[in-house]
């Protein structure tokens, strides 16, 4: 296989530099730079039209970038046609060849590479084992369920041992139970194969469970990249805080800095927050915190590590494993508080005045 991407070693590293794709329709990419490490499970997460699928299609070679470069293992592939890139790809609608059997589908990439028939049969059998579908080789795709079809598509995309696997919302068409099973299986496959996965989804839960790192995309740009914990605990802007998990947003006015911590007036209270930048005194900012990190205060707290605020309960919903309260702060800002349920904890009632508390470490200026 001359002039194709080399297939020694396990996972490919992928480097996107200032990647752009202009479109009249939605899904444009406006300058994405990413370094994806060898063997990494990276997810491109974003709402529809954020450019995540377009980015993936450019890596696969089905879209030509308007500007910028894509390098796989340090070699630019922008001028290389898709069939020479040696990249596995799984599509949302499976894209199995309806006129070929399962075995012929999985054998397809091997046939293109001139693998002899006997060897092909053996590899196809192994691939079917890997996705838990032994003995299904003689069937046609239409005779399989959606979940089974996606497993076949997965087997087909890895049977030729690519060093990079691209997946475009592969579980989007499946129901929740099946999706969760396949998520675990993909994680296992990723660990076993050791190859690089680039996964596109709009489902934040899926992204959080599966990925080593997530690149959150919005309007054709990477809004933030980091581990699931990074993104959840330290979102660097309001879009990320709102898109991943649930967040409370509190308008505040900066008083000053205490080392790395910003002190601000917020809803009649003094609140401390982690802050990546150094905003000047008097700046209008937004603080964010997660509903499950808030709690009703009891007793005294150290104000250097814990924020406190007086609120009114406006709504109380018991949801089994937890209680969900809607709260109103002094100037009318709504907040959500989630409390693990326990028969030992007194339930709050609507209209009640309460004091809430949460860690400074869980408060971020965005």
């Amino acid at each position, binding site marked *: 296989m001359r002039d194709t991407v080399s297939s020694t070693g396990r996972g490919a590293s992928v480097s996107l530099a200032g990647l752009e794709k202009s479109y009249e329709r939605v899904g444009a990419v406006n300058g994405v730079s990413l370094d994806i490490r060898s063997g990494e499970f990276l997810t491109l997460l974003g709402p529809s039209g954020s450019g995540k699928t377009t980015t993936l299609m450019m890596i696969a070679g089905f879209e030509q970038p308007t500007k910028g470069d894509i390098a796989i293992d340090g070699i630019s592939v922008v001028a290389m046609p898709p069939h020479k890139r040696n990249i596995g790809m799984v599509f949302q609608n499976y*894209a199995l*060849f309806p006129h070929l059997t399962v075995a012929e589908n999985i054998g397809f990439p091997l046939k*293109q590479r001139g693998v002899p028939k006997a060897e092909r049969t053996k590899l196809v059998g192994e691939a079917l084992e890997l996705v838990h579908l032994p003995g299904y080789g003689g069937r046609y795709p239409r005779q399989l369920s959606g979940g089974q079809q996606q497993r076949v598509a997965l087997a087909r995309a890895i049977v030729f041992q690519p060093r990079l696997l691209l997946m475009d919302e592969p579980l989007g068409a499946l129901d929740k139970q099946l999706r969760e099973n396949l998520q675990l299986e993909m994680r296992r496959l990723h660990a076993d194969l050791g190859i690089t996965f680039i996964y596109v989804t709009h489902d934040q839960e899926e992204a959080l469970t599966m990925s080593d790192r997530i690149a959150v995309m919005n309007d054709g740009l990477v809004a933030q990249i980091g581990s699931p914990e990074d993104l959840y605990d330290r979102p660097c802007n309001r879009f990320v805080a709102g898109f991943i998990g649930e967040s409370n947003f509190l308008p505040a006015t900066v008083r000053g800095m205490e080392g790395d911590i910003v002190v601000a007036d917020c809803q009649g209270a003094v609140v401390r927050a982690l802050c990546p930048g150094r905003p000047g005194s008097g700046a209008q900012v937004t603080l964010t915190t997660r509903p499950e990190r808030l709690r009703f205060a009891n007793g005294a707290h150290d104000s250097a590590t814990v924020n406190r605020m007086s609120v009114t309960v406006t709504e109380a919903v018991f949801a089994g494993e937890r209680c969900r309260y809607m709260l109103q702060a002094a100037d009318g800002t709504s907040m959500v508080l989630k409390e693990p349920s326990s028969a030992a904890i007194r339930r709050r009632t609507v209209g009640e005045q309460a004091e809430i508390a949460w860690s400074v470490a869980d408060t971020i200026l965005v």
Partner: protein
Amino acid sequence: MRGILPKSFVGLILLFLAFPIVVVFAVSFSSANYLTFPPPALSLKWYRVYFSAENWLAPTWLSIWVAACTVVLSTFLGTLAALGLAKLPRPLKVLVSGLILSPLIVPVIVVSIGVYYAFSKYGLVGKPIALVLAHTSLAVPFVVTSVTATLAGIDPRLEQAALSLGATPRGTFFQVTLPLIQPGVIVGALFAFITSFDELIVALFLSGQGAVTLPRRMWEDLRYAIDPTIAAVSTLTIVFTAILLGTAHYLRKRAEQNRTASP
């Protein structure tokens, strides 16, 4: 299904439509020496006449030959045209497909006159090749329509999948695209065959003395000498065409099934 018209009336309409065929059918098995209905007795003698008369068999073979050549040419050109059309940007696509489909709209008599003048310049009139070329232009629209319809039902990602799996664009066409559009191609080919095999008007202009096709021979027979042979020939033609149409219908159904079964 409760219809707008009463069942008996619908039955009458169907009978009216089928009646000529029924009469031709019956007359072809007549023992009489002239066209009469109902036939006095049944006989296969007119079929015997047809199968032993060189002046019937020669035009039949010529028609089959011309139709076969038309099928090869128009299927090849029409399939390529449909594949090309699918890749054209919208405004250009409308224009080009309009041009390709124009033989369906322009009256055949007009096409015939045009083709006659054009071909007579090169001495092609009276040669089978002239019929093949003219019939091809009439048949291409059927192939294009049929292949385009099949192509529209194919997920473009299948081609992307093939490319991502290492198939060359050429390999993708032969291993994925062509097998998937195959039913449409065959249906188009069948229609091309029928278009040419049944064609009279172009043949009237281009057959001359040297390339008399079956429809042309039937037309002449009707003008000069009417005997039940024509009924036997007609019956054979109707049965033959019906078989082709039935095949086309079956293939179309099967292609539809394939399509709905794939996600």
